[in-house]
Each structure stands twice: as C-alpha cells, then as structure tokens.
C-alpha cells in the first residue's frame, strides 16, 4: 500500500511551549485512522498543522508527493485534502444544498473568481451537492437553511461538506463531538461508509472500536 500522508518530527511551538512535539505519522491510502488522546494532548494542534490553519514550526509534511509545510489552508484543498471542524462551522444562512455546492466549487480555487458566468452553468457542482445530499440522507432538507437543521444533522452536514471536493484524504476533527447518544451511531456509520472510498484520519478523545489508532500522550 502507498503512503498518502507522512509527517516527520512535526513541531508546533508557541514560544517555549510545544503544542505538537516530534510527531511522526504514516497514513496508508485507503485506511481509517483515529488519533486519540485526552484534552490538551495536542490533537487539534496537530490537525491544524496538517490542514494549514497553523504553520508548523519545524518538521516535514508530505502528502501525495507534495511538501505541505508552506501551503496555506485553501491551497491544500486542490491537492486533495479536506477537513471538518470540531465546532460546527457551516454557512448558517445559506441552504443545505448551497453549503454543499460551495464546498464542491471550492476545488476550483481561483477559477471560482469568475463573476460573469451563472452559478448553474457549472452543473457538476450541483450534481455533486445532490449526490452528497442523498448520501447524507438530507435530500428532504436540501432547501432548509443550514442553521435550522437539528444539531445531529448539522454535524452530518459538517462532515458531508468535506467530501464534496472529492478529497483523497478526509480529516475529521471530533465528528461526534456534542452529539446526543442516539445520534452517534448515525455518524459512526457515515464514517465507515466514507471509509470505503476515502482515506480517513479522525480525531477522537476516546478510542473507537472500528479503526486503527495512534495515541498522543498529554504533556505536563
């Protein structure tokens, strides 16, 4: 199996404090991996380095043959990386379908700057949005504003938006966080479903019986 994502001695330091300290990861294509560790262990900081939200201060990130160290967050989407957020981060006042369509359009990068074509002239993004709607079982709520969905549905949409850009690697930051006990099976089912055609890297505070784990220890 080929290695899709690899980090070498990755570091994120805030002054003297090392939020991420010497992380070496290898993620094979086609697998589901969970990064586990208690609060404060640096899971989300690691995630930020991988997604580009923060610039890692030392080390190396290789993704699918590209060096990611200096790539900004938006530049990593075109390479095939997508992420979801721990705190639901949607376009609240736009419809569910529009949320997904925008996520699909995001892969166009600078081509989305075209201000003279009509949105619907790009059928593929709308089609992608409709496909994902179906996969998330949200078709009936396509025209609802994202902010009006139930919390569980918002979490599902949150994860769903990240697959609209047809990523090679899906990175999910605590997808079940804040979900009611009844909703969690829906999410775990969705993730294992997504795992069939994506490489998935997720963060959870607790181990999940499904996937492989890489533990991070909390530092004192």
């Amino acid at each position: 199996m080929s290695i899709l994502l690899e980090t070498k001695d990755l570091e994120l330091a805030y002054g003297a404090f090392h939020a991420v300290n010497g992380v070496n990861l290898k993620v094979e294509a086609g697998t589901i991996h969970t990064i586990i560790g208690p609060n404060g262990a640096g899971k989300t900081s690691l995630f930020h380095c991988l997604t580009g939200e923060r610039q890692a201060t030392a080390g190396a990130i290789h993704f699918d043959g590209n060096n990611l160290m200096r790539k900004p967050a938006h530049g990593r989407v075109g390479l095939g990386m997508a992420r979801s957020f721990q705190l639901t981060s949607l376009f609240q006042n736009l419809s569910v379908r529009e949320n997904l369509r925008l996520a699909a359009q995001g892969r166009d990068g600078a081509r989305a700057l075209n201000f003279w074509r009509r949105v619907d002239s790009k059928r593929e993004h709308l089609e992608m949005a409709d496909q994902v709607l179906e996969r998330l079982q949200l078709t009936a709520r396509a025209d609802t504003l994202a902010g009006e969905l139930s919390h569980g549905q918002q979490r599902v949409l949150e994860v769903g938006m990240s697959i609209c850009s047809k990523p090679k690697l899906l990175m999910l930051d605590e997808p079940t966080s804040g979900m009611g006990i009844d909703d969690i099976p829906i999410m775990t089912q969705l993730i294992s479903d997504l795992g069939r055609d994506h490489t998935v890297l997720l963060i959870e505070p607790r181990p999940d019986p499904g996937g492989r784990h890489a533990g991070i220890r909390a530092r004192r």
Partner: protein
Amino acid sequence: MSEKNPLPFAKTQSKAMLLWVLAVLIGLPLILPSATLATEILIFAMAALACNLLLGYTGLLSFGQGIFFGAGAYCAALLMIHLQLGLFTALLGAAIAGGFLALLVGALAIRRTGIYFVMLTLAFSQMAYFVAYTLSDWTGGDNGLLSVPRPEIRVGDTVLLSLADARAFYGFVAVLFLLIFIGARRVIASPFGSTLMAIRENETRASAIGYDTRHFKILVFVLSGAVTGIAGALYAMLLHFVPLSNIDLAMSENILIMTIVGGTGSLFGSLLGAGSIVLLGDFLSDLWPRWLMLLGVILILVVIFMRGGLWGGLASLFEKVRGSRKTASVAKEEGL
C-alpha cells in the same frame, strides 16, 4: 453584519424585481418636481449598490467608498477639462481610477479583519481627503473644481444626443444605472458572488473548503470601486462642479447610511435607500437647517425596528399581506 436572513422572495422573484426597477426608473422623473433630483437619486443609488456588494454580500464595512466616489469625480472632471475627453472615455477613466484605488485600499485593508479592517478604511478615507485638499492646483482645494463640462453623446464627429437638458441627462444616467444593476445581479449569481456570501457567512470555512478569500475580497473591492467611481463622475457632470466634500469622510458615511437604510440583503434596497435619503434631505433641508439630526433619528429607528432595512420591512409586510390573504382564502374553502 451577517445576521440577516435571505429574504423570502429575494431570489424567486428576481424577474419581478427587474420590472420594479424599470418602473422606478420611468416613474421617478414623472413624480418628482425636478429631473435633477431624480438623477441625484440614481447616482447615489449606484454608489449604494456598489457599497452593498461589499457590505451586504461580503460583510465588509468599508468607509472607503467616498475615496472612490471622489476619485471618480476628480478623474473624470480633469480628463474632460484638460484633455477634452468625451463622455464615455471620461466615465471609463473614472471607473479605472475608482477600481485602481479600491485595489490599493482593498489589498491593504483586508490584511486585517473586523474592527481593524474598518479602521484601516477609515484611515485611507481621511488620507484621501487631505491629499485632495493639498493638491489644490488640481482639485481646487476648498473651492472645489469648477466648470466641469457635461459632454454630449457622440460617435466620431456626429453628436447623437446633447445631455445639457436635465431630462436627457436623467435618461442617460437611468440607462447606465439599469446596466449596472443588471451587471451587479449577474455578479451576485455567479460562482464569484456565491463565494462572497460564503465569506460573509463564515470566512474560516470558506478558506477551509478551498477559497483564497483575499482574492475574492480584493476583486469585489475593485468592482465596487469602479462602479462608485462612475457614480462620482456622473455626479460631477450633474453639478458641473466637484466640491471637496465629494471625497470627504461624510460622503463615505452617506453612502453607507443609504445602503443600510435601504437594506443590505438586496440590490433594490440600495435604490430605496438612496431614494429615501436624498428625498428626505431635499424635503427636510427646506424645513429646518439642522435636518441632519432628524436623519440620525430615522437611521436609529430603521436599524432598531427594521432589520433588513426598508427593503426587509417591505418584504415582510408583503409576506404578511400575502399570508393573511392565503389564510383567508383557506378559511373560505373550508367553509369557515
């Protein structure tokens, strides 16, 4: 800035909205006492519409609109006075001047967000005012730039239409306004426009799904600046004069107030906002020299009681009327 709901018929009845605009354009000079007043409304509606692209659709509160308005006015006036350029080249020059300055201001200001962004645009606005004040050889300084011509529409050497008559000039401005209105709607309905709204709603997420949000913000700044520049140029032609107040901070405020009063969720709102503020100013200034105080009161009332501005107020009123009519007809069908 992002607490607005998309209004119920902002999208579905877009054809009808265009008819409304046409009706307003035709109706304005018929209802109003003078064509000059009607022209002034359309010019400020243009500026408010451009401001709305930033404020309503991208969530950027810019105090820089007066820079672009003033720059357009000065640029067109100077081109016409010193180089004897025609109508369309002068307008093009104004658009380029507005767009170029917007590129500069935008590119620097968007390096910060929120309150710091607003302060930066404010600082640029102050700077532009003093630049215009200092360059009095060109701008006339405090006295303003006098005897600005209003060229006729001509092709080659044949004069097609003189714009000296106030009604002819109104017609010209109305056609330009319609074109800009249609263009702006097109921009909003484009991939670019949809991304602007995504940035307004949640910039972090927009960036995470692949958009370089800086590029989008700069481009919308340039578009907005260009349209504002054209509005400034038309205003100079209307007055035959460019007062220093055109590039004053008060101009930026004025344009912002019109945009907010009209409603930031819709382009038609900008027309409403500009219309009501210009008319109120015209009406109240005859009654009381301190009329700006009343304007303040009106602004406060609209912001507190009409979320979504005049347009939002009208839209919800319309919905209510339609809703009550619907329930009435349902009640009838059920034999109640």
